[in-house]
């Protein structure tokens, strides 16, 4: 098993494309995305109920090797400070196959 950082991001649906672009720019092309998520944070309640999906959040999970973490999180910080959202980093082991 390989030590990785587990990065999870929650962001409003209209801005989720930006996160994927940012991750790809940082060389993180692999990800898992869960749509239709609701929640609440500093920017109020996201009920996930409207017609166009602006009130939906998106949950994005990706992994990152220790040496890349610093660059990735500072890029994410810059984005999230403008558009809001949550980013958590935790430690995990990836089962190599």
């Amino acid at each position, binding site marked *: 098993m390989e030590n990785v950082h587990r990065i999870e991001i929650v962001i409003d649906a209209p801005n989720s494309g930006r996160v994927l672009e940012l991750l790809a720019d940082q060389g993180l092309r692999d990800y898992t995305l869960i749509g239709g998520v609701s929640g609440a944070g500093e*920017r109020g309640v996201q009920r996930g*109920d409207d017609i*166009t999906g*602006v009130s939906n959040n998106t949950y994005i999970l990706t992994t990152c090797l220790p040496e890349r973490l610093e660059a990735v999180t500072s890029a994410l910080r810059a984005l999230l400070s403008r558009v809001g959202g949550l980013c958590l980093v935790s430690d995990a082991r990836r089962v190599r196959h």
Partner: protein
Amino acid sequence: MTVDASLVLANILTPPILFFLLGMAATLLRSDLEIPQPITRALSLYLLFSIGMHGGVALARSGFHLATLLPLGVGVLGSALVPLVAFFVLRRRLSVEDAAAIAATYGSISAVTFITATSFLEDQGVAFGGHMVAAMALMESPAILVGVLLARRYQAVENGAAKGETALGPLLREALLNGPVFLLFGSLLVGLATGEKGWATVKPFADAPFRGVLSLFLLDMGIIAARRLDALRASGLFLTTFALAFPLLNASVAIAASALMDLPAGDALLLTVLFASASYIAVPAAVRVALPRANASLYLPMSLALTFPFNVALGIPLYYAVITALWS
């Protein structure tokens, strides 16, 4: 005007409006009645598909004349100017971003209000031109551009750093290629291209069940709108007043313009409804991306929980009463 009261009542006592009120009641009474979001989205796609095809075949029937282009031009112009007025009114109390977001919201239009108005006209036995659907499609986006440009212009003065956040290219794309706008335009073109023959094949789907689908959709809109009422309490009287008074101002302008253009009563009502309604489809999506600092607990609830119910239940029959009174 005793006409008003009976028209208002006639409008309210139809399944779509009663289901809208039922939906609001469900939320306010804390029922757990809820329509799954994919269904919400599907119902709205159905309505856009149907009204688009309907408008397209109507256009194919009538053909293009100068008279059909005039209200389109006025509509687009209005959709670009209304945000300017709104912005400077709102700017007195709100941040640049909030003022710009709300301005864009009220410059743009509400497709569901428009659709409800077409049902109202049908009940009154009054015709309307297919080009009014084109007007609706054209009026969705300009307000977005104006709103965002206003924010750019005035943000620049206040806060240098925020400038240039989004390039204008993606914004234009978002505004013009927004899913619902695209579907509406596309359906209009398909309706135009396939004419009576195409319409005959889709009519049992797009026309016959329309009113029933609209009822179910408005039930859902009632549920969703009432959930946003909470957010408004915090935002105070100024915005509540704006959300109810500004549409009346816009409606008056639209009625005057319709009179000057000598539009038939049906088209005049639809143009009025476009001016008076506020967006909760194209604009919120674009604003989230282009003006992320704008408070989504303001522009969306104002449009969805105040202006929309007002227009749908009272505005439509009211505007129509004024129009028939003036036109006759």
